[in-house]
């Protein structure tokens, strides 16, 4: 076998190998981007507040007011992004509370409807004093209980 053929074969092999790596990296990048788009941890820019809320006929929640015990209340606008609660640093609202699990609860938008879901927390998430066992739709005026923290749902 002439060495030039083997050399060409070797070059083609290495090229294909890197093509594979590049394609795999592309799939990974796309995956990371798409999940970042649906579950951005922190809303960076104050997006137009509750765009969906104004359009809908029924009053839709526009913001959450987080009352952390002995802390200033914090207002979180509900704008397409998920809001997660937990002790883990990656949560939107980090709660330093031994009764809160690392990934405790999540408030998210599906089909134009804001819902709250418990993420398998140890002590549970409560919506109007009722334990959330399946994703529950939120309406303004609802009160969520996460550990010692109370979260008000407002327009």
């Amino acid at each position: 076998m002439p060495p030039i053929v083997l050399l060409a074969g070797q070059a083609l092999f290495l090229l294909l190998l890197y093509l594979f790596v590049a394609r795999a990296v592309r799939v990974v990048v796309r995956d990371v981007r798409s999940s970042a788009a649906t579950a951005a941890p922190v809303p960076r820019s104050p997006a137009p507040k509750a765009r969906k809320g104004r359009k809908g006929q029924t009053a839709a929640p526009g913001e959450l007011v987080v009352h952390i015990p002995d802390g200033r209340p914090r207002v979180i606008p509900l704008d397409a992004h998920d809001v997660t609660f937990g002790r883990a640093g990656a949560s939107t609202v980090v709660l330093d509370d031994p009764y809160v699990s690392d990934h405790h609860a999540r408030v998210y938008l599906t089909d134009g409807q804001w819902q709250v879901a418990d993420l398998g927390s140890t002590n549970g998430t409560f919506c109007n004093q009722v334990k959330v066992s399946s994703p529950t739709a939120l309406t303004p005026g609802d009160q969520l209980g996460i550990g010692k923290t109370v979260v008000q749902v407002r327009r």
Partner: protein
Amino acid sequence: MSAVAVTTKAPADARRKANSELALLILALLITVGAYALVGLATTGVVPGGLAAYGGAMAALGAAAHLASRRLASGADPVLLPLAFLLNGLGLVMVRRLDFAEQTSQAPAQTIWTVVAIVVFILTLAVVRDHRILDNYRYIVGIGALAFLLMPLLPGIGKEVNGARIWLGLGGLSFQPGEVAKLGLVIFFASYLAEKRALLTVATNRLGPLMVPPARAFGPILAVWGLSLSVLVFQKDLGLSLLVFGIFVAMLYVATARLTYVLLGLALFSAGAYAAWTVFSHVQSRISTWLDPWSVYDSAGYQVAQSLFAMGTGGIFGVGLGQGRPDIIPEVNTDFIFAAFGEEIGLLGTTALLLCFFLFVGRGFTIAMRSRDDFGQLLAAGLTFLFGLQVFVILGGVTQLLPLTGVTLPFMSYGGSSLLANYALVALLLRVSASSSDGRGST
């Protein structure tokens, strides 16, 4: 239809992922078949006769694995399986290539093991429909893993090969139960730590700048340290001993985020390593060989020295598949298979392989971070750490970065037990990944 309306995004997303997996698998298949053809051309001058059969078999295996992951783990990570498949395929080509050089016939056995491993992959996905069921069988899995770990010590079925008592011999077949035991231990650790993480995290005492958990929280880490030392003492297996302890400390850190455990783990590891160094001559020889392989070039250092020569000969582009002399390195088809690649596909090729391992580990930790339950998180992190640590330890040994410990290079080394365990590992990671991607917050 109403159900579809609610989760329209999920199936489309899952289909897109499955299609990228298929595309990557086809590319991986092309690469391995091409590599095999190249090996044949270089060693015998003709395209090997078994090329069509080999390509067909790999295509069938890839298709079966792909269908299983598409059907049984919809929405799971699309990169892990193709990475495993590529590494496995190239490993198989290299084993075949070494058969040419050494006049052995190990490739057929390894092909059969590949078939078995893919079957195990599919079965794992089919049986474990939700990774949380493993949580319920934690003690059975844990005791099973322990039994597997210690099984080679039983007289009769246990065998001692090259000084390490880690083999089971049944008839003509041999098996390393430790490979499977590692997976069982990860499952057990994940389940145990998911339950106890709160207890182990609470820090009550202050020690200098560190907040330290109460003394009895250190019980588990001491117990696992004892276990890993007993593996070292009775089975004389440095690699397995290191992996068992390493996984536990890493998982403990993932579960509690307490640096104290890592420091304690390092201290215990150093104490164990020092004790082993003073007591065992084989550990001493490993260390001195690592520090200076050239002074014992013709005896203990021969293997590492040849490995370094091989990689040096390979240079940047490699001497070409099938054109090197990898058969000079002892144990080249198991522990030192990476050196054979270093010689024949060079720095460029081995960098691509390293990128594949790197991507695998990266995806594994991503799966862990996205998992919605503590057990899934710890399981994925533990499995990934097991994989990554094993790659690091053996590649470190082959390149003389670390003392040599006999562990296999996942998916590439010759050896059925390891291949089988690693495919099961991929199946479990896909299972955790699928469970966190199906319609967020549903059920």
